[in-house]
């Protein structure tokens, strides 16, 4: 008969306790979790990338709903526990659920510290702690304006960078003379402030906030010296306090936090506690590595393995702001008997400082170049004497100490097996190698699943990949990560993310900053980069014609003999007598050898020599026709049936909706071609259920379908959602196309993207999140405001790219 385990709190620490427990003693307990937040367990340290828009919430979920079901765990979401009765051994939640326990785990985490300034309770004053805070910040950022972040520590700076990435003007107020003074020394703090200021964040140190001003909501922040900074949003990120209230109320021993022993037991032997709410030997913890260690020990103790003990250890810090590299570990305060070794390179913005005591490294601060962070951290923990010979080159790190090579593979090869690779999860080099050698892992994902390395903050991903490469050689790079092409080690997602986060706005900038291995790319990466830049910076990026495939460069389809085919747009597949006459005249005038109806309800004129294209287009333009983009990674056709206008079965005006969709979407560049169809009833004469996006009209509205295929693969679409009005159908289709434009890999059709991204995740972003849907729609319309110029007209009447259409003649 299993015992009953009740868990209060569903953060990362208790999540890890349960993982350890289930792995060690799967059937020991019936488990019930009370979570005050109305959601599953997610990776809280990755909230900053969610705020900056680099990741979505779905990407940071640790345990999805399925995990709880699979392990038979009862999860009460949105249930805050209000009482623990240790006599009766029960807990009671605010909504009134009472559950009894044999063992209780308290993991109530911490509360953000709120400075009780006048005005701290005004609407528009937020903390930075959970997803609700992030959502509130994202909402506030939508209306733009200025944000003031109070607190220049780790959380405050991540919040500031995220808000700025969301388009707000940001001021950081910090009470101390330099930023992150607990993790950085003044020199590194200065470099950090300079970097952030260079990105347009207003940094004010020694700024003492006096009050938050506003009538009905935040309007400004006033400083002690009288300065007033206007603000529509104030984020307080000045620190956290262990949330020990509930435990104290239940009569458990508490100090700053809930007091625990080395097995994570509280003063009541049946009650355990882990996480930020805990105090152990006078220390409270806020970084993930020691919390995961607590969780592991607690999980083992609950499973009956009592022999393990938590010990206080050094922790290291990294800042999760893309493009900023800093690292600190250990104790780097100045002091008697302490020496320091400093290295600076102003041009590169590099600063390194090691602090030594009794010939041992006790602290390290690195800024700009953090490659040796793991190695220094290892040296600090090992506490081996440095020796006078090694000291001279110590600051240059492991590659210098360990031999001549600066190659990253040689560097990881030189690490001892017990060197810690993943600080968050306490995974050593030896454990990772074992997962490769003994458990046959061959990919980053495999090692992640097996060891948890690189699954939290992700900054050790490069090291893990180096270890894979070290063990597997070429087999890793070939079978592992899919890179854009041989010119780079980055994959499509990395390139897309870095273009945005580093503000890269040209192909040369991408190649320089991402260290392309070729001078100007190849026929694979150049079109991909051109598309990613175009999609990332609408209205800003100047299209690079020379990086486009010939069809998109000359706006026609090259044929096997070097001639071209010309397909004018037929909006929703409709045409007129005048258009047909004009097409017939063009065919006669230019002796076009073949004319064909396409599969997408349009007319294709085949066999046009390149030189004739501008004149052909001029005649088609004169009859009101424009490019059909039949040649592009772009919107192709919107096929329709005649719908309620003519058909006796038609339920809605499918032709009209098709035309509206095509008018809205034409000219949009996409990762691959996009074909749509709208059918007027479920008989589906327009064959909408094998298209990239399809609409099937029904009596009560519109079924929106997506991710079909009818090419090399044949796939029926999935239903995205059903909507009642035409306006909603238009908005949903536009949001879907924009999401694909933002997430798809170049040359990946919608069905492939959907399989990779997950149909449900796409639904969550478009259907369930109305705000996100509206925002995607707006971004699409904004991008379209730059792309709806007929390329044929530009070339036929305005001599754009005239060189393409003229053959040079040799002269003596």
């Amino acid at each position: 008969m299993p015992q009953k385990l009740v868990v209060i709190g569903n953060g990362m620490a208790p999540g890890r306790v349960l993982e350890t427990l289930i792995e060690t003693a799967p059937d020991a307990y019936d488990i019930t979790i009370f979570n005050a937040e109305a959601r599953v367990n997610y990776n809280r340290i990755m909230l900053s990338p969610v705020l900056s828009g680099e990741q979505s919430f779905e990407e940071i979920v640790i345990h999805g709903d399925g995990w709880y079901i699979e392990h038979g765990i009862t999860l009460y979401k949105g249930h805050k526990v209000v009482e623990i009765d240790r006599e009766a051994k029960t807990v009671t939640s605010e909504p009134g659920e009472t559950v009894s326990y044999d063992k209780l785990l308290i993991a109530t985490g911490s509360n953000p510290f709120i400075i009780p300034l006048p005005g701290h309770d005004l609407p528009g004053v937020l903390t930075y702690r959970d997803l609700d805070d992030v959502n509130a910040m994202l909402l506030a950022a939508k209306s733009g304006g200025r944000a003031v972040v109070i607190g220049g520590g780790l959380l405050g700076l991540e919040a500031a960078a995220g808000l700025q990435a969301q388009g707000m003007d940001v001021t950081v107020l910090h009470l101390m003379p330099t930023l992150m003074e607990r993790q950085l020394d003044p020199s590194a703090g200065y470099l950090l402030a300079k970097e952030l200021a260079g990105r347009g964040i207003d940094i004010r140190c020694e700024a003492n906030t006096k009050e938050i001003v506003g009538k009905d909501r935040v309007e400004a922040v006033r400083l002690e010296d009288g300065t007033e900074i206007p603000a529509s949003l104030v984020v307080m990120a000045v620190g956290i306090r262990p949330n020990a209230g509930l435990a104290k109320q239940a009569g458990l021993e508490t100090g700053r936090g809930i007091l625990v022993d080395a097995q994570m037991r509280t003063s009541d032997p049946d009650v355990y506690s882990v996480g930020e709410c805990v105090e152990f030997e006078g220390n409270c913890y806020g970084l993930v590595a020691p919390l995961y260690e607590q969780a592991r020990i607690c999980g083992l103790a609950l499973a009956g393995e009592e022999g393990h003990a938590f010990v206080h250890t050094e922790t290291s810090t990294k800042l999760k702001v893309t493009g900023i590299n800093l690292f600190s570990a250990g104790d780097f305060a100045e002091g008697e008997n302490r020496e320091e070794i400093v290295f600076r390179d102003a041009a590169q913005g590099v600063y390194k400082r090691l602090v030594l005591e009794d010939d041992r490294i006790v602290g390290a601060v690195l800024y700009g170049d953090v490659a040796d962070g793991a190695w220094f951290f290892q040296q600090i923990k090992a506490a081996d004497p440095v020796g006078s010979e090694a000291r001279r080159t110590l600051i240059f790190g492991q590659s210098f100490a360990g031999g001549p090579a600066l190659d990253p593979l040689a560097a990881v090869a030189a690490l001892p097996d017990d060197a810690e690779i993943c600080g968050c999860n306490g995974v050593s080099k030896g454990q990772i190698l074992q997962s490769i050698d003994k458990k046959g892992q061959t990919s980053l994902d495999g090692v992640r699943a097996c060891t948890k390395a690189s699954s939290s903050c992700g900054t050790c991903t490069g090291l893990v990949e180096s270890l894979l490469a070290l063990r597997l050689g070429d087999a890793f790079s070939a079978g592992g990560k899919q890179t854009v092409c041989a010119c780079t080690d980055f994959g499509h997602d990395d390139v897309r993310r870095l273009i945005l986060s580093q503000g890269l706005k040209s192909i040369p900038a991408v190649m320089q900053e991402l260290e392309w291995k070729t001078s100007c790319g190849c026929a694979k990466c150049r079109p991909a980069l051109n598309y990613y830049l175009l999609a990332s910076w609408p209205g800003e990026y100047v299209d690079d014609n020379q990086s486009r495939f010939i069809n998109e460069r000359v706006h026609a389809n090259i044929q096997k003999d070097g001639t071209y085919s010309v397909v004018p747009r037929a909006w929703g597949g409709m045409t007129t007598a005048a258009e047909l006459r004009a097409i017939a005249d063009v065919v006669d005038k230019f002796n076009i050898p073949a004319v064909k109806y396409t599969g997408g309800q349009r007319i294709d004129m085949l066999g046009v020599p390149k030189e004739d294209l501008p004149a052909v287009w001029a005649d088609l333009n004169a009859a009101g026709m424009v490019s059909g983009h039949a040649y592009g990674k772009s919107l192709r056709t919107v096929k329709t049936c005649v719908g309620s206008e003519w058909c006796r079965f038609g339920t809605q005006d499918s032709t009209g909706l098709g035309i509206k969709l095509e008018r809205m979407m034409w000219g949009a560049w996409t990762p691959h071609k996009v074909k749509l169809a709208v059918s007027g009833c479920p008989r589906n004469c327009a064959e909408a259920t094998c298209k990239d996006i399809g609409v099937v009209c029904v009596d009560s509205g519109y079924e929106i379908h997506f991710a079909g295929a009818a090419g090399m693969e044949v796939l029926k679409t999935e239903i995205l959602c059903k909507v009642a009005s035409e306006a909603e159908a238009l908005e949903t289709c536009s949001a879907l196309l924009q999401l694909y434009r933002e997430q798809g890999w170049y040359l990946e059709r919608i069905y492939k993207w959907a399989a990779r991204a997950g149909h449900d995740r796409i639904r969550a972003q478009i259907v369930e999140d109305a705000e996100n849907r509206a925002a995607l729609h707006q971004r699409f319309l904004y991008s379209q405001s730059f792309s709806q110029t007929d390329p044929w007209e530009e070339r036929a009447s305005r001599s754009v790219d005239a060189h393409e259409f003229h053959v040079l003649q040799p002269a003596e």
Partner: protein
Amino acid sequence: MDGSGSLDRWYDICALEDIPVRGSRRVGHAGGTIGVFRTAGQKVFAADNKCPHRGGPLSEGIVHDSAVTCPLHGWVFDLETGAARGADEGCLKTYPVEVREDGRIWIRLPAC
């Protein structure tokens, strides 16, 4: 380099800026169209505008480093030597080209 028969002559075809950087132009010639390519490093090359694989017009391909990728089936040719790169086998006929001091491009072709 090929195309150095005794009947060859130098012809003025265009100015350097008439060819886009990392782009190309076609030159009409009695012996068949010739592609002229300008690289990112401002070098100019000329070669038969016909892929030995299926006759694709190489002037319509994407130019990268000193190579061009055929628009029809993606064969890549080194413009310095005319040889196909990678696993594909084939060679283009190349022609001597000069960018003279006044910025004009001259090409040496068999007399028309």
